[in-house]
């Protein structure tokens, strides 16, 4: 299997002197194409920072993030934004849907930003998979938490990105919905042959992953 994502000696410190926080401390990881990796760690261990670096949301102090053979931090901000919408799908804990847009529009938003024509069949296929075919015209404010997160998943999938990065996607959901959402995510990812990196607290969810990385004080310990 080829390596789709890897970090090389990644460093990110906040503050300095006594109060310095080593959010990421010389971390090198590798994720293979099609893999489902769960990143587990305590609060403040640096897992969210790592995920943000992987997605190019934040720049490291030093080190590289290589996606598909390319160091993404060699890109300028504008190029990085384009790269992000084409190659990476994000799923956040608090959904981050655009309140003014309906379900369909939220899903196709990354395509719209790229000026791409929407492949309706493909997007409808995703929509059917996540079970929201009836709710396409609904506004986010009328959806339940689980429904919102499913919309966020569909949005992350719509561009067929190579990698999906999920930051505690089920943190705000009850346990029943949580399992539904994770299974759905897992199914979709494997169906569309995507790589999934997910941050979680939850041991049960971590167990569903192909591989679990444990992060402590900015270092991957396992």
């Amino acid at each position, binding site marked *: 299997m080829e390596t789709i994502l890897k970090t090389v000696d990644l460093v990110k410190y906040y503050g300095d002197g006594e109060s310095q926080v080593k959010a990421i401390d010389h971390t090198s990881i590798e994720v293979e194409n099609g893999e489902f990796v769960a990143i587990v760690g305590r609060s403040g261990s640096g897992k969210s920072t790592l995920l943000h670096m992987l997605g190019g*949301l934040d720049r490291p102090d030093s080190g590289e993030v290589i996606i598909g053979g390319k160091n993404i931090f060699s890109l300028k901000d504008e190029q990085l934004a384009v790269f992000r919408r*084409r190659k990476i799908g*994000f799923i956040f804990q608090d959904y981050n849907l*655009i309140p*003014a847009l309906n379900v369909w529009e939220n899903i196709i938003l990354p395509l719209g930003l790229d000026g791409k024509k929407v492949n309706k069949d493909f997007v409808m296929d995703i929509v059917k998979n996540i079970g929201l075919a009836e709710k396409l015209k*609904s506004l*986010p*404010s*009328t959806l339940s938490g689980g429904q919102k997160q499913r919309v966020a998943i569909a949005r992350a999938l719509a561009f067929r990105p190579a990698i999906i990065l999920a930051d505690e996607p089920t943190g705000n959901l009850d346990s029943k919905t949580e399992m539904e959402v994770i299974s759905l995510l897992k199914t979709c990812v494997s169906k569309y042959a995507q790589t999934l990196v997910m941050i979680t607290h939850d041991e049960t969810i971590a167990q569903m992953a192909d591989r679990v990385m444990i992060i402590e004080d900015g270092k991957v310990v396992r």
Partner: protein
Amino acid sequence: MNIITTTALANLKKNKSRNILIGIAILLTAFLLTMLPTTVMGQMSLRFQAVSKLYSPVHGVYRNVDEESAAQMSRDETFETVGLREQAGRMYSGDRHITAVMMVYDETARKLSKIVLKEGTFPKKADEIVVSSGCLKAMGLKGGVGDRIKVPYQPMRKGKLLKAAEKEFTITGMTEDAPESLEKGFYAPMVSEAFAKEIIPEGEHTYEVYFQLRAVEGMVTEEIEERIKLTGERYGLTEGDIAENSEYLLANYVDVALYTGLGALLALIVLAGILTIYSIYYVSMLDKIQEYGRLRAIGATRRQIRRIVFREGFAVAAIAVPAGIILGLISGILLIKALVNVSLSSDPVLGEEMKVILANGEASLVKWWIIAFAAAVSLLTVYVSLLRPMHKAGRITAIQALRYQGGQKGKKKRRDRKGYDELSIPRLTASNLGRNKRRTAVTIMALGVTGVLFVAAATLCSCMNAEDITRNDIRRDIKVCIDSEMDDEMHPEWALSAIQQNNPMTEELRSKVGGIDGVTSIETSLLTQGKLSDEKEEGEKSETDELCDIKGLDAASMKELEQYITDGSLDDPSLKEGTGVIVSPSTMKEMHAGWKVGDRLFLKVMDGREIRQREVVLAATAEAPPSLMGYYAAMPKDALQKLCSSDITYLWDISVEKGKEDAAAKEVEELISDVEILQMETFREINKQSENAIRLVLLGCYGLLSVFGLIGILNLINTMINSVHVRKKELGMLQAIGMSGRQTVYMLQLEGIFYTAGTLAVSLGLGSILGYAAYLWAKDGGIMSIRVYHYPVIPAVCLTVIVLAVQILITYFVNMNFKKLSLIDRIRFAE
């Protein structure tokens, strides 16, 4: 400090950017509330002090009052004081450009007129006189106090100048010459009542009555003016003979119109302040819901939440209000100084006096009541703006806050949205703007209101056109016309009837004028005196002093008149036949109420020594500038000439090539210099006077415009910043899923353009309509000679450019500010 205040102050720091915005809004409100009244009241108190120093403390003057009425007025209980002034005669120099009116004052009039002698005493005996050195020089006389001078003079009798006589006077006193007297050759030597009695037979005296009314304390100027008018009418005086001393009245009594205007303006500022401050709170409240909810959850009562919001707001006001007041005072005083120094007063002496008062620091420009007023009203503005946010914050429950997801508002939740199949940045923008249509509309209207006022005020400004006012007097570049004088027994040849029999405006002179370099055309108008009536008058002779101007227009002028026709038509057959006359509607209203187009009338005209009468038809009415149609009636030139056998040529309107006006004017002046009864005026000279006349009004108007502009810009900035501030997280999220910086700016720009376009559409659309209405109102009321509508092109373009520039700048700064935050901060915002 209790916990509520501590929390409020902590919030103050946390919501720094919002509070800076609100601070600016409050500061601007306090600034305008201080600056405007300081400037207006300061300017007025300077003016009033100058007026009180210079002007007679009289309420008004009645002119042409006969002896009997004057005596009655002295006994009339309506008046507190009555002083009499009379023109006994004029010193005779033979030079038309020197006027020295021999004035007689009774003691009261003299005191009221504040006449001060440089030296000596006032005249008592019939052969005593007070003169000025300028007057003596102009008359070719020499002397000082105690000297005897021989003065040739013409006695004045009921407005007519009689044959000159000579009298020896003793100079008892000397007065100072005002600069403009020297410039205009106008002097007013004083003679005694005894002298007037000697040369004017009893019963033929005509007085100017200076008076103060009784029991007017506490009255407003409008009431006093009304009383002056009614009392004058009771004595049978016409409107032209009644004059109120408006400067003095304004300075000493309350003028309702002035204070109403100022009050309205201040109310507008307060309203704009409330709108601005309230909208900032309203918008920022959306992302504070969770915070207040949390406070509620840990046990804060509604009252406490309200207090937190209130104290946070007032903490900002505590800094912004004093700062605004101080800035307002400083700029108000600077503005007063600037205004006084450019001396915009129509009366230069008054302007000078104001400078002196200002320089001596005699007027207190800082008024404590303005400061108190500005502080109270600013705080009230803040309080009113805070009421709803306080109430809203107090109502937030813990549950609401925890469930809050943003974007939801009100009870009626929208469930669905039709949406687009494909998305693009413009569509995304449209969705955002459509999210809260009411708010978007309210924002545009709030922004537009100041724009509407701006455009309306600008319309009035642009209609207040110096050139239009000038064109009332002069049609082309140079005007040469007859300068006749009636009723001078020494110079019967200056009377119009005499001039018509020996008219200096000959073909020869005309062709000489035509030959001057640069002169492109000379339009000739005829004019004689005459009167229209609806009854045939018996007898050929008539009192000449009740006659008005009848103007004869050439073909080109007739064509120009066409656009001003208000009734009837210039194609009326009577005009071709030479029997049609054209009258202005205002003349009809004032002098011939009830006449209508088509009426058969009798026209009486002066033809040399003869008066001719013929039947005419009222062919049309036209509201044209007096320089074109005259002040009374007009008819085609040939028709008017046919009525008269003498030469009634009166006026040449001379056009000159651009750039050669001054040289041509000089040559024309030389050509006519030896003809005493011709006078010349140039467009440039008159226009300069017109410009001076409207300068003050224009300045006030533009001051008003900038106030509106400032409020509008503040609102626009506030709206744009808020729309970004509130959606920081949303924008961060959009960027996380791949919106590039450029796309973000594009989206913000589109939003800005939408608000800008909406604001401009409302401002220019409604503003133009309101402006046109204001123009019609001003035209109808004859305000500032407004007659022609001019669209305020430059202000409209400025408004557009400024609004666009502000919008682009805001987008730029927002983006800069935005870049400072990392994407992560933005996504986490509000958590």
